[in-house]
């Protein structure tokens, strides 16, 4: 503040005060009456006005009112004479900042000026604070809006269906993703539906219990389920959700839905394509298997022809044996194919798994000896009599042990002492584990990947490429699973886990086991 407008009708006072103020460093404008003062004020808007109260024409009060009218921030100091108390009170009401009495003393003036200056300074600071505060509020508001917009956009553009409720289970968020899955339009859901109206009872129960009961689950991990859309379609979805909390209070729920229709469709198509490919493979594999058998049959009939022609009983006999062997191979292959292609329910009956394993080992002992392979048994004596399908155990173990012996036979590292181990373990109170290990040739990853596919064989005339495929099918029908671990040159272990029931229980099916 350094511009002052000084108003008084007495020229001497104006002059003396003017000199004094200028000496203090102020820019001083003077006026001898109210009208002149207002004209100058309007033009130059000085920060401070010092005006006499009693003036001919427009008096000091009127100057004060007009000045405050033009700029309310202006500080106005009133110069009063004796007996001007009433006017002084009026001046206060109109916002005068200070009074000085006539005759004006320098000290009094200085104090009034300092006070006015402080006031102006404080006002200015206040204005600056206010402006900065307003700017900050505006910026914060913008940021909040931006974030909320961002979150809104995120929710809107999410491919997943997102549905949120408040603590009264009323739906408050329902994004376009959810619209696509559920089919109900946004406006008929938000603030209109409760979870029970939109979700299947299964999902609604989870949410309702979670929100209303302390003991309810608060997080629902991804699970596959289905929902009912507006037009009654059952739509497969993946669902996950959680109960929302704020400061320990439950404030609602959110649920996410992934539409699985497209995935399921692709899965079906893939399955179909795989099935077609399998048919192609089956035909090719079958042709290969038949070629070997045909070769044997041709060889056999050649020998038989020779035998007849030369009346050579020995040739006749060996030719006939060859034909019979190949008829045998044909029938084995056909039986395997039938086993593979037919659905069969396991037939549970009481049996001793260890006995079956021992039986298989004994059955193949001769073949193993011929191939210079030892068979070792490691049977868990704690396995009791149980109810399982003994035929499945027998077939599976027979296939695996035969393979294990062949794996040794195909091993080119002739320095090894080949061994096949058949082991059983009581894994828990409803599973038995069977391991068939060998230290033979092992498998590359490529072979391991194709193990269970049809007609894949590395065994030349010995393999039909059906054994493992049939084994896996039987194991799965029994509710079990089969794993393989192998390293090239070191050997292979096949592991089967089969569920069982207590012996003596009524016959049951694999279905029941799977459900458990």
């Amino acid at each position: 503040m350094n511009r002052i407008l000084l108003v008084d009708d007495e020229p001497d006072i104006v002059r003396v005060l003017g000199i004094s103020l200028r000496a203090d460093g102020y820019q001083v404008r003077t006026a001898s009456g109210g009208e002149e003062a207002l004209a100058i004020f309007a033009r130059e808007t000085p920060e401070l006005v010092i005006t006499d109260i009693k003036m001919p024409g427009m008096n000091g009060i009127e100057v004060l009112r007009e000045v405050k009218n033009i700029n309310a921030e202006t500080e106005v100091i009133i110069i009063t004479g004796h007996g001007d108390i009433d006017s002084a009170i009026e001046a206060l009401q109109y916002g005068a900042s200070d009074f000085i009495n006539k005759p004006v003393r320098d000290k009094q003036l200085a104090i009034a000026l300092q006070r006015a200056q402080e006031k102006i300074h404080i006002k200015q600071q206040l204005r600056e604070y206010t402006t900065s505060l307003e700017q900050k509020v505006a910026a914060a508001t913008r940021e909040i809006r931006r974030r909320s917009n961002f979150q809104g956009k995120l929710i809107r553009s999410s491919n997943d269906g997102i549905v949120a409720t408040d603590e009264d289970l009323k739906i408050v968020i329902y994004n376009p993703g959810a619209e696509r899955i559920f089919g109900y339009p946004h406006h008929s859901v938000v603030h209109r539906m409760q979870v029970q109206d939109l979700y299947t009872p299964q999902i609604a129960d989870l949410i309702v219990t979670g929100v209303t009961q302390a003991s309810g689950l608060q997080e629902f991990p991804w699970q596959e389920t289905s929902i009912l859309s507006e037009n009654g379609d059952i739509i497969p979805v993946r669902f996950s959700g959680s109960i929302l909390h704020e400061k320990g209070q439950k404030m609602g729920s959110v649920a996410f839905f992934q539409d699985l229709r497209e995935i399921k469709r692709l899965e079906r198509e893939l399955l179909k394509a795989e099935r077609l490919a399998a048919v192609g493979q089956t035909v090719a594999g079958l042709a290969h298997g038949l070629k070997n058998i045909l070769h044997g049959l041709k060889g056999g009939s050649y020998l038989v022809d020779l035998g007849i022609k030369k009346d050579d009983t020995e040739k006749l006999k060996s030719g006939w044996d060859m034909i019979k062997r190949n008829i045998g191979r044909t029938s084995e292959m056909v039986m395997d194919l039938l086993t593979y292609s037919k659905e069969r329910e396991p037939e549970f009956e009481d049996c001793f798994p260890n006995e079956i394993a021992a039986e298989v080992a004994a059955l193949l002992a001769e073949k193993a000896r011929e191939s210079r392979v030892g068979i070792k048994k490691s049977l868990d004596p704690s396995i009791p009599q149980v109810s399982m399908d003994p035929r499945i155990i027998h077939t599976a173990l027979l296939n695996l042990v035969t393979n294990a012996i062949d794996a040794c036979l195909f091993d080119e590292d002739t320095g090894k002492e080949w061994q096949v181990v058949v082991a059983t373990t009581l894994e828990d109170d409803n599973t038995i584990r069977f391991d068939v290990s060998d230290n033979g040739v092992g498998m590359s990853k490529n072979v391991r990947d194709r193990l269970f596919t049809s007609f894949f064989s590395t065994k030349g005339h010995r393999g039909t490429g059906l054994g493992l495929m049939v084994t896996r099918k039987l194991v799965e029908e029994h509710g079990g699973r089969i794993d393989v671990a192998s390293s090239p040159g070191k050997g292979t272990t096949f592991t089967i886990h089969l569920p069982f029931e207590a012996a003596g229980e009524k016959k049951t099916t694999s279905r029941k086991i799977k459900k458990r």
Partner: protein
Amino acid sequence: MGKKVLVVDDDPDVRLFNVTVLEENGYTPLVATNGEEGKNLAKQEKPDLVILDVLMPRESGIRLYRELKTDKNLKHIPIIMLSGIAEKSFLRSQKVLAEFGDTPVPEPEAYLEKPVEAEELAATIKKIIG
């Protein structure tokens, strides 16, 4: 005493068939049931012809074929491949091995895919070694 023909096959039916065809046509058969045995017999007996299967335990026909065709004492012996595997699969496997750094080997003198008629086998042998 006819020319010596080595039959290498793990399938007893194929061995018996091949041996009979050989005998009927006046050759002297030698028999090996796997690749390892086949290699030893080939070195020992220096046969005039080898009839070889592709898939066999204890050293496959693919390896034995390479060994015979890269051994300076044996590589002149003609070989008939007799297999359930298609000829192109066999040739591809040899090509792959060559690409992995093994010496390239010539194609076999004859390749017969099972099933084979006795007459066809006999004619093929005759064409190669007389």
